[in-house]
């Protein structure tokens, strides 16, 4: 456990907190967005907001792939799964995401065959084992999972598998960040950049945030000290009037990403003209579809997809939460009608959703919870 203590030392956390506080200019408010849902999770599990001065607010971003899928795409997927001889396959995270007529689990109770898989390669295996069925993989996720879908399609082609296709819902993080930067609702001072997405895309794609928008970006790891250190690096840039892309997580994230993964995505997929994001609306060039050369693996071409558009439930304010305009506890149904057991919105379904993170760690306001500090951070 010596390794882990290195990332969790409470004294180091307090020392970093003091250095962050020393960088605050009197009277100035700082809003920093953590883009990734994994970071949101660490922040609430370890009560990191309690280490920060009142003038520093963490705003939770749209980096939870399950949370940004609009209800209409769930309905489309269920429609696909209802076609004759179809076996739909999906990551477990998607199974409880509500569409307008229930989630995948509910559809299965009505007769569809939607199977949970760990990997798209498991979906390919199901296709090979069931040559008389048409197996569709519900592909979701940011650049972290898109290479896996791409590699699976390349493998399917190499092996001559003809009854496997992809319902592609992969999204790309950069246009979502740009949409947030262009949104008049929110003024941000800097970004804690996503960790695992950056192992694929690297750090260069964030440079426009620093150069064109003048906001610092620090790619961060998932340990509590990683996040505090990233906040310190952002605050130091702001204090010195710099806006640069820095990599706090260089022990995992190469500056140029993973070229093999990027090549596999580029070979099999291309950007869609636009895609609907839950809460953020239509964003141009923000999602991927199969390239024409791989049309025989594109479920949207092999099947009739209705292209359902469904407005989010009126009571649900996931959109505002995903944009960072509202904190989860400010949503009217948070913790009452909407809980992880009976989610109304996607942010409560996924464990990486901001609402689920708040709910699971008992965060109902930004009041200090001192015991959280002593419980969660180990003493050296």
């Amino acid at each position, binding site marked *: 456990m010596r390794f882990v203590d290195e990332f969790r030392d409470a004294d180091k956390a307090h020392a970093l907190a003091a250095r962050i506080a020393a960088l605050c200019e009197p009277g100035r408010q700082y809003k920093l967005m953590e883009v990734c849902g994994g970071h949101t999770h660490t922040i609430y599990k370890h009560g990191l907001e309690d280490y920060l001065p009142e003038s520093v607010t963490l705003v939770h971003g749209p980096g939870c792939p399950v949370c940004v899928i609009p209800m209409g795409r769930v309905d489309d997927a269920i429609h696909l799964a209802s076609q004759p001889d179809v076996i739909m396959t999906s990551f477990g995270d998607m199974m409880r995401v509500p569409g307008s007529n229930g989630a995948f689990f509910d559809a299965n109770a009505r007769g569809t065959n939607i199977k949970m898989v760990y*990997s798209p*390669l498991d979906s390919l295996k199901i296709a090979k084992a069931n040559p008389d069925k048409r197996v569709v993989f519900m592909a979701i996720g940011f650049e972290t999972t898109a290479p*896996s879908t791409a590699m699976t399609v390349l493998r399917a082609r190499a092996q001559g598998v003809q009854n496997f296709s992809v319902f592609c819902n992969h999204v790309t993080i950069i246009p979502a960040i740009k949409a947030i930067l262009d949104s008049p609702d929110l003024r941000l001072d800097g970004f804690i950049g996503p960790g695992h997405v950056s192992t694929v895309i690297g750090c260069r794609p964030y440079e426009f945030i620093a150069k064109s928008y003048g906001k610092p970006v620090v790619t961060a790891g998932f340990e509590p000290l990683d996040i505090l250190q990233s906040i310190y690096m952002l605050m130091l840039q702001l204090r010195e009037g710099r806006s640069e892309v820095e990599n706090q997580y260089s022990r995992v994230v190469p500056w140029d990403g993973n070229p093999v993964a990027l090549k596999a995505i580029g070979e099999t997929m291309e950007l869609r003209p636009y895609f609907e994001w839950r809460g953020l609306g239509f964003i141009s060039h923000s999602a991927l579809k199969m390239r024409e050369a791989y049309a025989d693996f594109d479920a949207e071409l092999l099947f009739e997809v209705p292209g359902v558009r469904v407005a989010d439930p009126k009571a649900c304010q996931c959109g505002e939460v995903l944009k960072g305009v509202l904190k989860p506890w400010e949503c009217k149904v948070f913790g009452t009608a909407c809980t992880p057991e009976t989610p109304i919105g996607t942010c409560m379904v996924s464990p990486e959703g901001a609402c689920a993170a708040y709910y699971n760690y008992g965060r109902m306001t930004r009041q200090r919870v001192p015991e959280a500090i002593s419980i969660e951070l180990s003493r050296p």
Partner: protein
Amino acid sequence: MCLGIPGEVIEFLPEQPDLARVDVSGVRRVINVGLLSDEPPEPGEWVLIHVGFALSKIDEAEAAAALEFLEGIGQAYEDELAALRDSKIE
């Protein structure tokens, strides 16, 4: 599904150089290492795994920290491990 889980490479599958057997918290399963073809890992090295694919090489300290983080997440990691246990990549 979005969780990156650390695994130790045990061996490569004969005749399938892009597949490797890894150990994840005591669960041994086959994953695809094709995304690391520029710099393939050696047996005994650690990789970060996303949905059945090794996405990057990591050192042992990072693997230990990542595991601790995942174990702290609780249910979501247990679900991921259960899914991995059912996985039969070939």
